[in-house]
């Protein structure tokens, strides 16, 4: 039974993270290259030479697609090795395998994000906009997400820490003594993750425009979506960690990999996946990238 669940969960993880969403991203890139070419929308390509800009975008797309598919193939090989009992199932190493493989699966997404970041920097550097405008009213977090949900995210984080530090049990994480190095590391690391979410949120709210040409409506929609994703991520971490502790308490160690894999897939579905679903290309005003 454990083996069947392991195989199903692992196959889903491979498909969702390394095939389904990467292919969606590839189709999105192809749609942009086809409908908004560098010759007509130079600002979208940071005013680079149209031929070079298109070639670079194509190259990036191919690297992203091939890397994702190669990782998917590696996942199938790992699964095959599991069956060949080289890597036994259900003996505690499933979690480590998952963690290592997930980090590998995230690599194309990280490269894609870095490439977008670089592109936006180029766009800001090549900014030729002499007429600049701004809204004469302050932006606040409550314009984008409900303050109740933000408070709830904080409460959940504190609840998890209390649960972790004061509830004792059999789970791996449960054996940490109050303020020993393990407890400090886990609490510090998760708190740091929450601080990182807050920093990213503040940067999107008050920082420089990520895309200098984006229309106000699109900027508002994008910022709102990013803040919602960050909020879901904050909830996700606290709920995942609390559930992991609970599973340890209940002695369900053999299903920890299911929990971890489900969380990792959740992170992709509600992270980049949500971005694809909610930030649709047809809703974006691409005329801002045209000549003139």
């Amino acid at each position, binding site marked *: 039974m454990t083996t069947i669940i392991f195989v199903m969960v692992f196959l889903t993880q491979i498909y969702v993270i390394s095939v389904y969403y990467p292919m969606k991203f590839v189709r999105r890139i192809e749609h942009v290259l086809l409908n908004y070419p560098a010759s007509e929308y130079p600002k979208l390509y940071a005013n680079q030479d149209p031929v070079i800009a298109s070639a670079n975008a194509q190259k990036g797309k191919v690297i992203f697609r091939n890397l994702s598919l190669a990782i998917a193939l590696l996942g199938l090989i790992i699964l095959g090795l599991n069956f060949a009992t080289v890597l036994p199932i259900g003996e505690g190493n499933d979690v480590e395998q998952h963690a290592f493989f997930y980090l590998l699966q995230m690599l194309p997404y990280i490269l894609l994000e870095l490439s977008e970041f670089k592109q936006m920097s180029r766009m800001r550097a090549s900014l030729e906009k*002499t007429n*600049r*405008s*701004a809204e*004469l*009213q*302050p932006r606040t977090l409550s314009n984008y997400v409900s303050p109740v949900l933000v408070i709830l995210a904080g409460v959940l984080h504190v609840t998890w820490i209390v649960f972790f530090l004061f509830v004792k049990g059999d789970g791996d994480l449960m054996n940490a003594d109050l303020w020993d190095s393990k407890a400090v590391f886990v609490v510090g690391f998760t708190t740091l993750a929450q601080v990182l979410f807050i920093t990213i949120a503040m940067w999107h709210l*008050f920082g420089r425009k990520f895309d200098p040409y984006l229309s106000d409506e699109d900027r508002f929609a994008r910022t709102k979506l990013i803040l919602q994703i960050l909020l879901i991520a904050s909830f996700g971490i606290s709920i995942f960690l609390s559930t992991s502790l609970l599973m340890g308490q209940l002695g369900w160690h053999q299903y920890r990999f299911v929990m971890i894999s489900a969380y990792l897939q959740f992170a992709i579905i509600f992270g980049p996946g949500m971005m694809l679903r909610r930030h649709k290309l047809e809703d974006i005003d691409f005329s801002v990238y045209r000549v003139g």
Partner: protein
Amino acid sequence: MRISINVDEDIPLFQQLVEQVKQAVMSGGVRPGDALPSIRQLANDLDINNKTVAKAYRMLERDNVIETKGYRGTFVHPEAKSNAVVDLTGWVQSELTQLVKKLKDAGITDSEIRIAFGDVMNDRAIIGATK
């Protein structure tokens, strides 16, 4: 209410900002008591230096068009509408024009006026007079 600036214009950016905020007040785009964006937010949105926005806000605060309430932020002054029409820069121009004309009529040369003006601005005339 939107404001816009042109980075290629000869008018300094802080002055454009002051004028834009005053126009927004006079047209009713922003009302007394309304909150204004922070210096950082406005500077980032317009892609200009924080110091430029800070300078514009200082001048608007001096003219009682806006007021800063500590950590709560910057707000439109209760008397902003009447204060926004007072053009202190224009008043300085007109006062100085009259004074310069008077000095020239008295036979003072341009360079003498410039040196005296520089001394007054740098407090040198006061130091010299007290010696």
